């Protein structure tokens, strides 16, 4: 008995090691041209930067960076990329603020940027090294980082209403419409206290970032009526439940809506009349980044039009880079047309103008969480 366990343990471990060892992957280098393993030809850097570091530590959202970028950067600059991921701003913040991690670049969403700046977690950026001119000015100089001292835009999007036009008889047009009893038991909501409480505040005509306890109490009571009708809360992959037909409508974000629509064109993304909740992900450099030179080179290279357009192909969000869109218009017309023809990625100007950004509410944060606990904690 014991002998067998011994053998088994040993063999399992050896087999597992073998499995791990046979890992392929990696870029091929063609003649003088640099080509990735998927056949993408790496363009030359428009601004050649001086890089002495041999590594670059990225701490980014899951599934948010095209593989070609990493392969090309490694080929062009000879820098090894260490790619760690997180799935929520809070996880990233908790890890950075507890210290000890040495990352060069992170991707905070708007509301957490101000907090990170206050806590001294981010360092100021040297704008001379960054392609500031390549951006659509609508995405620069926003309230969470005036003058873009600490961040540059990455991708933007909205948290709006999605519904299946085939199965929903009376389509919603506003957040307030979600309280329609016909929708009970058929909805998926984001599991995000700020977004859901926020949209309730909007239906009551209040500010989405209010700290007023009376207004929040009112929002809580209104939301408590709605929550029993929500079939599930999901901030990971709400499109799954929609595509699977478990739910017919709900609240989700840009990228998810686009993918759902691709699977089934009946899925429609509508920007509510109260004004959509908007968000923006940004690149930022943590204080004490050990390979700052490589970080600037990375941003400068990946933000080039002929590199940044890959985001249009892989991740359907609102692209703040004018350079990328211009490049796609001339060189990737199919992709460009698909992007421009969809109101999901090409958000109408009026909708953007009417939108609201979520901001950090400081000492009212536990109050929002308390409301969330009470709403979900009740039976």
């Amino acid at each position: 008995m014991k002998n067998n366990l011994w053998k088994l343990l040993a063999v399992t471990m050896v087999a597992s090691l073998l499995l791990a060892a046979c890992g392929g992957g990696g870029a091929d280098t063609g003649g003088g041209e640099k080509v990735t393993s998927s056949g993408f030809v790496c363009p030359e850097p428009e601004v050649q930067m001086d890089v002495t570091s041999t590594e670059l530590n990225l701490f980014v959202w899951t599934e948010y960076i095209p593989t070609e970028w990493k392969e090309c950067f490694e080929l062009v600059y000879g820098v090894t990329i260490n790619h760690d991921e997180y799935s929520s701003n809070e996880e990233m913040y908790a890890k950075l603020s507890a210290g000890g991690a040495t990352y060069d670049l992170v991707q905070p969403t708007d509301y957490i940027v101000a907090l990170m700046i206050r806590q001294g977690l981010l360092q100021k950026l040297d704008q001379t090294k960054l392609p500031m001119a390549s951006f659509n000015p609508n995405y620069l100089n926003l309230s969470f980082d005036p003058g873009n001292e600490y961040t540059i835009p990455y991708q933007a999007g909205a948290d709006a209403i999605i519904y299946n036009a085939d199965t929903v008889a009376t389509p919603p047009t506003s957040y307030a419409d979600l309280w329609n009893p016909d929708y009970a038991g058929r909805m998926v909501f984001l599991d995000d206290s700020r977004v859901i409480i926020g949209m309730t505040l909007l239906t009551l005509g209040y500010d989405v970032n209010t700290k007023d306890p009376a207004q929040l109490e009112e929002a809580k009571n209104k939301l408590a009526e709605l929550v029993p009708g929500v079939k599930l809360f999901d901030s990971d992959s709400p499109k799954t439940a929609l595509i699977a037909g478990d739910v017919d409508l709900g609240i989700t974000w840009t990228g998810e809506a686009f993918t759902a629509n691709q699977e089934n064109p009946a899925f429609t993304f509508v920007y509510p009349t109260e004004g959509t909740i908007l968000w923006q992900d940004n690149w930022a450099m943590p204080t004490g980044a050990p390979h700052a030179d490589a970080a600037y080179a990375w941003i400068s290279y990946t933000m080039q039009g002929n590199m940044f357009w890959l985001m249009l192909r892989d991740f359907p969000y609102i692209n703040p880079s004018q350079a990328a869109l211009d490049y796609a218009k001339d060189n990737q017309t199919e992709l460009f047309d698909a992007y421009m023809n969809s109101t999901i990625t090409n958000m109408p100007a009026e909708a953007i103008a009417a939108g609201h950004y979520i901001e950090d509410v400081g000492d009212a944060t536990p109050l929002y969480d308390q409301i969330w606990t009470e709403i979900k904690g009740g039976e």
Partner: protein
Amino acid sequence: MLKRLRENKSSQGTLLISPTLVFMVGLLIIPLILTLIISFGKRSPDGNVIYTFGLHNYIRILGISTDCPGGQAVCFDPLYANILWRSLSLAFNSTVLVISLAYPLAYFIARAHPIKRNTFLFMVLVPLWTNFVIRVYAWMMLLRTQGVINSVLGWLAGLVGLPFTPLEMLYTPGAVLVGMVYEFLPFMILPIFTSLEKIDNSLYEAAADLGANPIRTFFRVTLPLSMPGVVAGTILVFIPVMGTFIVSDLLGGKQVILIGNLIQRQFLDARDPTFGSAASLILMAMTLIVTFFYTRKFGFGEEIVAA
């Protein structure tokens, strides 16, 4: 000095335990003390800790509030008590179900031919080596409205010519229970197997010779002798279920908050480590108390895991 080491049994013991102590004290006791200190503190506007001494976090969890709607001086807000109670019930129900499913299987393996026993045991372990979360996702694929089970049932109904409305299985408390039972079943099978394996076959023969029928044998011989395994398995199942929230989140659609969610959210979303620390300590205290009384009544499980 080496000679003194050989002579002195006490120093030998200390030497053997020293690496463990380094790890436990360094990596666990120090953070635990830190947690205790933080639990008495106040939250700064940005979510950091203001070190002070106050019992406000504990008062909040116990639900003692002075902000009473009825106008009394002090009243009780059951919010957190409900969450704790919900977690306890889920843990209790899951454990009972796990025991009922694990016992027959453990019995089967324990009384199997010795050579086949290993194989049967490892077949129990193999699912554990896929990823925990992926297994939960597999259940989602099974239980969905258009998932595997409904598709199969629909096809069967079609064969017989019956109309069929898909069962709503996912995002219900039932789904959460099934998921919990599934994830923790192997941890109960192994300890019960160990105690059952130790029972000599001659005991069964003796009982039969004395005229006991199978049911009597079970209640008078098998069950009492296997209790240490049941106890050990309960500890290995009950405690993690109290703290796990992934299963409830994925299979229950995050409709309810369990104590595990609450604590996780305090450290991440609410950025209130003071309240989170207090909640963690209360959870740990409750778990220790329940375990203490349980092992007092049923005896300390000697076979925590099989061999």
